[in-house]
């Protein structure tokens, strides 16, 4: 178990470091990097301009730049956002709770709808119900998240529903397939033949064997929800990290984008590793 934990921790660390470096390398190679618009101010003297240029010297060497940035991160300093002129740490502290709340509600709604629509399919063989559920899921799969957010904004409905509706078709489709596969397993057929109630069969014989897959789906849902959070927060004007990422992208604020990319990568990898670890331990127990 300890070895597995160490393996996952190393993987998380390496992927987050590589992700940060990749984002920073891209930022460094982007057009206009290192150009300070203060240099165009005609009131400044040559010495001042030279000093401004010198202040960017540490950013020229990408490895040195990354090392300095990492050292700052280790001390809890994420730098200052040039576009918003505020410490990144403060921006994150203000906006993370908004996104966390949106994601939490979105996951509840998405899972509630997806799982709620898929479960009856495991027990009821109604063609009309199946067609209806599939049609609803396909419809929401085909509407861009930003358009959904716009409709919810115009109808003054809760924005967390949009995140939920983006996740719901994926959860529904996966849950439906998984439940169908489980329904054909010998132990489920035996339990049914012995006359166990549907609820008991579902809770004791459907869910536990597929627990690792359900956990994997939770991790995937988080990644989907994070993606959906960007257009939802932008369109509904919610001050979360999705809106912050969009603002950073529009203003070409690479420092902020690198930080956000790192945080989001870390959250996704952590969730994936946690679901894998839990899934592995459940498999071992089974």
């Amino acid at each position, binding site marked *: 178990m300890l070895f597995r934990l160490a393996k996952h921790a190393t993987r998380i660390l*390496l*992927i987050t470091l*590589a*992700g940060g470096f*990749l*984002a920073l390398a*891209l*930022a460094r*190679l*982007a*057009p*206009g990097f290192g150009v300070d618009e203060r240099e165009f101010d005609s009131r400044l003297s040559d010495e001042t301009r030279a000093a401004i240029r010198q202040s960017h010297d540490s950013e020229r060497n990408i490895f040195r730049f990354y090392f300095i940035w990492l050292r700052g991160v280790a001390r809890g300093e994420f730098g200052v956002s040039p576009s918003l002129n505020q410490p990144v740490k403060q921006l994150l502290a203000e906006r993370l709770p908004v996104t966390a709340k949106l994601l939490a509600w979105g996951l509840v709604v998405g899972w509630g709808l997806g799982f709620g629509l898929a479960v009856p399919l495991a027990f009821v063989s109604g063609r009309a119900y199946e067609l209806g559920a*599939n049609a609803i899921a*396909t*419809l929401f*799969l*085909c*509407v*861009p*998240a*930003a*358009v959904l957010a*716009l*409709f919810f904004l*115009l*109808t003054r409905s809760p924005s967390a529903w949009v995140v939920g509706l983006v996740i719901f078709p994926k959860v529904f489709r996966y849950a439906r397939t998984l439940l169908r596969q489980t329904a054909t397993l010998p132990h489920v057929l035996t339990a049914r033949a012995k006359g166990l109630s549907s609820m008991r069969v579902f809770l004791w014989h459907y869910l536990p064997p597929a627990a690792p897959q359900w956990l994997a789906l939770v991790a995937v849902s988080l*990644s*989907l929800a*994070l*993606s*959906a959070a*960007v*257009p939802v927060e*932008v*369109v509904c004007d919610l001050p979360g990290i999705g809106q912050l*990422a*969009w603002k*950073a*992208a*529009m203003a*070409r604020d*690479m420092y902020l*984008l690198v930080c*956000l*990319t790192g945080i*989001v*990568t870390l959250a*996704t*990898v952590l969730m*994936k590793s946690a679901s894998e670890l839990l899934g592995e331990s459940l498999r071992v127990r089974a």
Partner: protein
Amino acid sequence: MIWIRNAAIGILVVTFAACLLAGTVAPASYAKQFREEPDAAPSHQHWLGTDDLGRDRFSRLLQGTRISLLLAPAAAFLTAVLAGLIGGIAGYWGGWTERVLMAAADLVLSLPWLFLLLTARALMPLNVSPMNSVAITFLILGCLGWAAAARVVCAGAKSLRESDFSLQARALGCGEARLLLRHVAPNLRPMLMTQFWISIPVFILAEANLGILGLGVVEPLPSWGSLLKELSGLTAISGQPWVFVPLLLLVAVVTSFQVLLVDQELPS
């Protein structure tokens, strides 16, 4: 259900035909401004009315559909090629090559799709021409979508490498390059075709989302994303129903792709 599948095929055929004939069917150029008629309601001259700059909405819809529908498959093709190369090499050679390439795939998959797109799009210069913005947007989509497909291809290439016919071919003295090109690659084609078809609706929706966020195709060139951006100026849903036509068309096309994918009727 056969009629649903036929309806989906019909929608796609008609839409593709309309966008290919956009140059002759459209009543005006997508950029031409009828300055006396901004925000006009639908009429004989302008079937879907005009936008706030007086541009004919129907012409812009045809041109936008052409751009989105022709470039999304191009981006999907690029994704399939990259996935085939990376996944094929990783699966066929195995060992460290596989570990390194699949770690790269893991890295790309760890980043949520839209965050990755935002970051990559933000790195592009501000003063790109409309044509370049189209190329950049779809190139980014094509270059970032390979990871999930590469994992599938890698697993496929791995099983093909260890299959009986590969063993037989090796025993007969077939070289590795020949084995890869003549025996393994053709067997990977169905997988790549599936990934290609799966990617098209995903890329259409991704471009639409980017367009609404203002990071897609640059004006005056239209795309589904930039046409949908117009919806953000609405204050009520019931005001101008004709503004929703691009959305309806997008939903119809993406749904058609989804129906065909689910039905597994697409050629492989």
